[in-house]
């Protein structure tokens, strides 16, 4: 890796770290984004100067998050990793799924005794409306004419302010 790509890899690590995620996972994602072909665990460990076990743990985290996928090469028993195909659509799908889960959680919380207090109830209702509106707007932007972020948007439902 040259200096500029190295810099992007390190910045991706710091970006992840700031969000409470593993810095190594961020560096791995950065490295794979910049790679032209799938990479083996050994190659990743060497490129990032981390242990193979650490690469293994973090690449599996990225796999679970849906940004990275494992591939095999005929005649080669090793596992290889690459950025998931169609990543923007996949990331958008993940965001929507997370928002839908958050919405369900907040709605269900309305049935707890704590939600009998008006301040708590109001907070949960506003939060649920916000994540629902975000999910709808995201879906529109992704599925509208022209696809990803083509500018096709309809009004997000619900008032959250």
């Amino acid at each position, binding site marked *: 890796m040259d200096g500029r790509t190295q810099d992007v890899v390190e910045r991706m690590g710091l970006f992840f770290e700031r969000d*409470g995620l593993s810095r190594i996972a961020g560096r791995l994602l950065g490295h794979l984004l910049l790679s032209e072909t799938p990479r083996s665990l050994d190659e990743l460990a060497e490129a990032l100067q981390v242990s193979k076990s650490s690469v293994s743990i973090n690449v599996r985290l990225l796999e679970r998050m849906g940004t990275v996928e494992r591939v095999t090469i005929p005649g080669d028993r090793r596992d290889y990793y690459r950025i998931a195909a169609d990543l923007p659509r996949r990331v958008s799908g993940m965001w929507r799924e997370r928002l839908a889960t958050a919405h369900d959680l907040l709605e269900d919380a309305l049935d*707890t005794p704590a939600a009998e207090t008006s301040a*708590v109830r109001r907070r949960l209702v506003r939060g649920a409306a916000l994540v629902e509106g975000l999910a709808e707007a995201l879906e529109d932007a992704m599925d509208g004419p022209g696809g990803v972020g083509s500018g096709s948007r309809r009004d*997000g439902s619900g008032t959250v*302010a």
Partner: protein
Amino acid sequence: MTPAEEQFVERFGRHFEADGVPRIGGRLYGYLLLQTEPRSLDELADALHVSKASISTNARLLVQWGLVERATRPGDRRDFYAAADDLAGVLQLRLQRVRAMTDLLGTGADAVPADRPDAAHRLTEMARFHAAAAELLEDLLERWFGPDAG
């Protein structure tokens, strides 16, 4: 906590964990969402059965995301935490992060050597996707919270 509240807190923990974020962060946020008063580190550690250090680390992360805010009580020198009700603030912080990621991906697309066309294409696509997401967030902020929020 009642069993229903306990269950909500645990589910919130798993919700965060699925994103690769510490489960305790999710449990902490879930718990604070159900409180009417700010809670001290001691109270939070006690309620969630985790160390004060762990509460402190995770609370800092939640404060950084704008989900939680620090609070004080008159005559009490301890730190208190409460769920933030400023949703525009949460979205604005998210917007900043999406913009930062757009820049980083753009830098990556510029930095990738010419003999890696697939990687360059992927980085450009991802940068465009994040730029579109940022635009969407700006638009929603303005529509939901007024022209100054976007």
